[in-house]
């Protein structure tokens, strides 16, 4: 098998973020919230504070590490919710067809017409800001692509002989969907899910930046950027490092998604050949 640069690069970047998030308490130098010390405010990056400190004198390196936890939690959990909703709706709509398909397709098209970030903003405005609300808001607004993809893949598979055979063998519809169709459409869904995870990390940052996501003092990359707005010319490191963290995470997830697509999606493989 030939060397897949996308997959390896993406995997390494994403793994780095996962390691940073997982071992944040051990890797961090200080507590990201409590260890504020105005004496140390706005110190540039150096040997003591690797990424410098912010206006409250907190260590940015430690805050970025802890921020990875929030970003990963939001990315993974919200995308899991999206995938479950999208697959359940798309698979059943494609398999059953009829009025259910009309309904699901109609709702999906409506969802696609509304910018998902605006939709998430609206939900956040109703709920109280916080991690749980953020997971709900991002988990309910991004399933339309997964849904369309699952529906289309199901339509192309449902007349395959082995699906017919399962019906003849007495399998229930749900069992056919779960055991016969789902394993065969999973590849492209994983790809979309990975790419969507990058989108969710960005969305979390955007919402937090706007003050509708994770509220300060908790170290979300988005809220760190938001806090750093005033010092962007005087102390650029306060915004550069969280921005870099977002960039690395999203880039890693996108590369990983592309790499997985090359492996899992035979059509894209054929196109390249």
């Amino acid at each position, binding site marked *: 098998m030939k060397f897949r640069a996308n997959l390896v690069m993406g995997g390494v970047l994403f793994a780095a973020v996962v390691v940073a998030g997982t071992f944040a308490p051990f890797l961090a130098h200080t507590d990201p919230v409590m260890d504020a010390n105005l004496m140390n405010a706005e110190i540039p990056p150096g040997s003591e504070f690797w990424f410098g400190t912010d206006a409250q004198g907190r260590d940015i390196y430690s805050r970025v590490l802890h921020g990875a936890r929030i970003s990963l939690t939001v990315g993974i959990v919200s995308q899991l919710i999206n995938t479950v909703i999208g697959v359940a709706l798309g698979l059943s709509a494609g398999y059953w067809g009829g009025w259910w398909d009309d309904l699901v397709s109609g709702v999906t098209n409506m969802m696609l017409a509304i910018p998902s970030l605006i939709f998430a903003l609206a939900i956040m405005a109703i709920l109280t800001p916080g991690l749980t609300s953020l997971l709900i808001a991002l988990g309910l607004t991004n399933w339309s692509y997964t849904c369309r993809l699952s529906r289309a893949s199901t339509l192309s598979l449902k007349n395959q*002989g*082995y699906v017919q*055979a399962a019906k*003849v063998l*007495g399998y229930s519809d749900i*069992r056919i969907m779960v055991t016969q169709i789902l394993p*065969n459409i999973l590849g492209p869904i994983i790809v979309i899910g990975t790419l969507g995870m990058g989108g969710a990390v960005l969305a979390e940052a955007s919402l937090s930046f706007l003050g509708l996501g994770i509220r300060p003092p908790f170290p979300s990359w988005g809220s760190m950027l938001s806090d750093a707005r005033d010092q962007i010319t005087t102390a650029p490191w306060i915004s550069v490092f969280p921005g870099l963290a977002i960039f690395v995470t999203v880039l890693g997830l996108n590369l990983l998604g592309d790499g997985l697509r090359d492996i899992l999606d035979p059509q894209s493989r054929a196109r390249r050949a």
Partner: protein
Amino acid sequence: MSETGDNTILKVEDLEVKFNLGGGLFGGKRRTVHAVDGVDLVLRKGECLGLVGESGCGKSTLALSILGLQAPTRGRVILDGQDIAAPGVDRKARARIAQMVFQDPYSSLNPRQSVRRTLEAPLRMHGVTTKSEIDDRIAEIMRHVGLRMEQAERYPHEFSGGQRQRIGIARALILKPKIVVLDEPVSALDVSIRAQIINLLLELKDTLSLSYIMISHDLGVVEHMSDRVAVMYLGRIVETGDWHTIFTEPRHPYTRALIAAIPDPFNHGLAVKMSGEVPNPLEPPSGCRFHPRCPEMREGCRAQPTPPLAAVGQGHAIQHEVRCIRAAELV
């Protein structure tokens, strides 16, 4: 023909399957296709019924109705004494009576399931749960279809087309059904492999006391395998009888044209007996549906109603029936 002869395993009575096209939300003319239009059939234990006809004649829809995959709009399908076309019949109960072997051995096996999994899942679902019994049943069926036990752990892509078809046959037989629908069972296989599968199917029919309904466009295969043959045209049976009668003394001009259309390797040239193609099933011709293509057509053939399927000849064990007003003249 005895109505409830104790060796009748399948009885199809006045079966009709209609599809509605058009209509719906954005209007358009609503039209109806009669894919199967009033079909009566009988299959006895141990028999192979060959179902022949060109694309669009309704043979596949008929087979799907017999398996319960297509709900009929009228009529009954009595499998082993039970009307399986009635609403509310359990899919599982039907599965233990009738099974199917598919045409394409590549798309008919789930690429992500090993042979064992393909055979084990249906057994578990139908209440066979002890490990030893499952192993015995799988070993038995693998032996019957000529596969080795160590091949059970492999996945479909590791097998050739002929072996895949053996796996498909094993899957159809794992629940010990009484009837198996064979949908073009060899037409997707390499020519040099076909004889293996044909021989296997005939052998299994005897050793496992199965009854077959075989759909095929290959008349050579149909003649070789069938006991009884039904010829369909535009949703209706136009001729039925035992294989010998159908292949040596066909009466319906359509049957004759079908047989004449097979290239004879020992002679040059074909006796093209009819012209044109199957008409649009949305607008079937009046009277006898075959009349626009029929070389024996007379004025009366256009008149309504369609001629009935009527018995001809005497002394056949299986009644010879023909749907043609000129059947008596066309000897």
